[in-house]
């Protein structure tokens, strides 16, 4: 393991690994076939900094105001020891009236340094509750959970709460997108559920590590959102079991990066060679071409939706464009062209200047037919 860790360290260079969070873990399930990202994520490389240094920064996608509105909504919901939240949870879980213990772990500090302290406290509170030594209705505010990702602990901060009732723990996600007449934008819900899945897995691991049954963590996520066009919160339940499965699969696969590491030439590094230690003032001095060469030893798998989950999207797109890969045309064309990887190959098979590989014969025939129809329509020149 230690040589594995040290090889990942070499890949990253002498800076701290970029900490993962539920968002970046959730992104693992998008484009799982990309080896480049698997390696970068396993090593904790700062993909943002990488993209900036390569000259392909991704324009910001998060609205600052939306972020602060989200924080406001969360604060509103948790106000007064979570009284409103508790009554929503009671309704959605059909609980009889009873007192609940609300523990706010942010009193232990919210800086990065306090993460392990908060985690230790979270762990002991949850285990106490699970073993029936603490109050049964436990609401934990600002808990810190841990997931091991390629041999390294990742601290997760659910914006909220693990709630135990009748011996079962629930993960609660507070999101500020509105649910209107029982419907919400699909992509937003999907994102929330994937993040929730990361928390659920971490909670399952926590119980498992103490020899407790992981079935005591509900795989149903409790979602708190504004109702309709008001800022009044409402609770919904979403089944997260599919997302939990696929996230677990991806987390296991990340452990498989050892194999990918073996395939890299020795000494490969994505070190940006910073000229100082202060993240605010340092500049990267690594030669760009050299860095690009190093990145090219890893196999990318560009997809048009990469920009939604990976900071290298514009860099990889430009590489895919230079390589004339079918991938730049999007998923529909990608599907249509099956095993044909490049645009010149597709066009060559269509006009007959290229002969197909044995497994491409059917597709090539269909392409030649489509091309003949195209020529009928537009003539050779259009």
């Amino acid at each position, binding site marked *: 393991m230690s040589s594995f860790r040290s090889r990942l360290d070499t890949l990253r260079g002498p800076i701290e690994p970029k900490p993962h969070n539920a968002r970046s873990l959730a992104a693992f399930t998008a484009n799982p076939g990309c080896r480049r990202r698997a390696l970068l994520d396993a090593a904790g490389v700062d993909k943002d900094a990488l993209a900036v240094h390569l000259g392909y920064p991704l324009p910001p996608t998060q609205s600052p105001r939306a972020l602060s509105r989200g924080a406001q909504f969360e604060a509103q919901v948790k106000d007064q020891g979570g009284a409103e939240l508790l009554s929503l949870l009671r309704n959605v879980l059909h609980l009889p009236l009873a007192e609940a213990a609300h523990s706010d772990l942010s009193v232990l500090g919210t800086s990065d340094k306090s993460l392990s302290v908060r985690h230790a406290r979270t762990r002991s509170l949850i285990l106490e509750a699970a073993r029936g030594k603490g109050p049964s209705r436990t609401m934990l505010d600002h808990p810190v959970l841990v997931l091991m990702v390629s041999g390294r602990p990742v601290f997760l901060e659910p914006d909220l709460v693990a709630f135990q009732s009748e011996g079962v723990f629930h993960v609660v996600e507070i999101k500020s997108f509105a649910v209107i007449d029982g419907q919400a934008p699909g992509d937003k819900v999907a994102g929330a559920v994937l993040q929730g899945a990361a928390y659920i897995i971490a909670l399952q691991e926590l119980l498992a590590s103490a020899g407790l049954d992981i079935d005591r963590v509900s795989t149903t996520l409790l979602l708190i959102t504004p109702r309709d066009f008001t800022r009044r919160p409402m609770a919904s339940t979403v089944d997260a079991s599919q997302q939990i499965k696929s996230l677990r699969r991806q987390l296991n696969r990340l452990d498989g990066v050892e194999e990918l590491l073996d395939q890299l030439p020795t000494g490969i590094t994505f070190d940006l060679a910073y000229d100082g230690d202060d993240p605010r003032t340092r500049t990267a001095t690594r030669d760009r071409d050299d860095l690009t060469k190093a990145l090219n030893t890893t196999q990318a798998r560009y997809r048009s939706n990469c920009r939604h989950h990976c900071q290298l999207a514009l860099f990889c797109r430009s590489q895919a464009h230079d390589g004339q890969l079918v991938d730049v045309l999007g998923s529909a064309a990608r599907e249509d062209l099956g095993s044909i990887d490049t645009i010149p190959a597709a066009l060559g098979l269509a006009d007959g200047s290229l002969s197909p590989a044995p497994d491409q014969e059917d597709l090539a025939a269909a*392409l030649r037919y489509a091309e003949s129809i195209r020529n009928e329509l537009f003539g050779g020149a259009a």
Partner: protein
Amino acid sequence: MSLLTTLQQARAAQTQYAQPLSRLRYLHVADQPMLILPLNRPGETARPLAVMAGSDPSSPQLFLAPPGDDDRFLAVLAEHLHAYIHSFQHATRIRPAKGEQPERREYLDAPQLVVTGTASVYYLKTLGRALRYRPIPEGTDPATSVSHLGRWLTFFTERAEYASSSLLLNLTSLLSTHWATGQSALEDAHLAPLMAWIFPPHGRTGHQAALTVENPLQHPPDGPTIDPSFETAQLTSLFADLKSARGSRREHHVTRLREALESYLTPTWNLAWEALSTLRGMPPIPSTTTRWDTDIRRFTAHSDHLDAGGPPQPKQDDAVTAAVRLAELEHAAASLEAARALEDTFVMAERRTTGEAFSGTVTHTEPDRKIKPQGPRQRAKRRPLLTVRTTDPVRLEPNRLLAGPHDPAVHMAVCDITYTSDATEIVLEVRTRVSSPHSVPAVGTTLLLTTAPDHFRRPQFPGRDQIPWTHTGPVLGAPKEEQA
């Protein structure tokens, strides 16, 4: 997507210029449509910060909702949109009775809204939902109320789901049916890069031009979501200024906000009109008029519903309404495709690559064939037969009704298909226009055939009172909402 489209896309990527998909238009483009460019307030649900709208390219109107001033904004916006809509509610004509339809009065023309893309359609739909249940204040005219604005927006966005409707045009999706670019659908969904591929400025390739407009600070993207870079660079401080200012200082900051949003929206405004006039310049296929007539009929019906004081559209469709609607949407899409195939050579060609159409030679005919009477009181029916031989890869089932551009009114049913090693022989029976001399083409003629538009029958659904109560509850959306 068809391989033909994919090939055009590949060719666009290789040449770096957009490639034509079809040069014929199938949706109506009005002489005076109303372009609407909404921008939502960041972090809120369906709460516009500004809307640029108008029917005259040279004089856009900017409706602004500076923080703290929403209601007036909505009232003014409603007035503007209603003035446009009401201008179509004067001239009428009488449609004579036809079949089961009684004689009825109909407007001569209908309003047409235009937005840049699917995100804006969705936005207007949500806005319609937010507004249509608003109570109409005592003493105000319902016809110009904010509530009616919500109902109109709901009407237009619901119609926009029908592929055959032109009441609300979605520019990027429409342009994408006419051009293939060398980028993905995700990128095509934005007006600026799509237009850059289609009309790159002189000296640039489509690909280069599209990359240039990707910088959000130099080329503000179309809405309704405000670009975060613009928000950070300008909006945040403008909002902060507004929050603390009163009186004339506030006026001053409102003006600055207005200018900032005007310069944000103006490039998209100009581009959208350019896109519209390009689409308008394309020759329409003949059935475009019929589809617009349907739209006019729907517009008339909704106008009548509002005039009669009918209720707003329900929050959720019940199970039957939802099923009927889904079937109607599919029906509209399928019959539109079939109609287009008969009138647009590209669509027909595309269908040949998917096996839904073929071109072949007539090898045998029996123009005088008759079939025996089915019952005692019936006479023998004329049912000409013909055989067509094609080398196209066909995918057809027996009994399917086919038609061809040579005479779309002649429908032929597939009776028999025989595959030989190098061709396919299809035996067809003429079902409509059987006595017309043109219904049976001569041996040696080349025929182009595809599924006839009328082949798609509307499915039958039970009436609402025939449904057990277990199936009439509201349709649940995701996420499932528990009773609170």
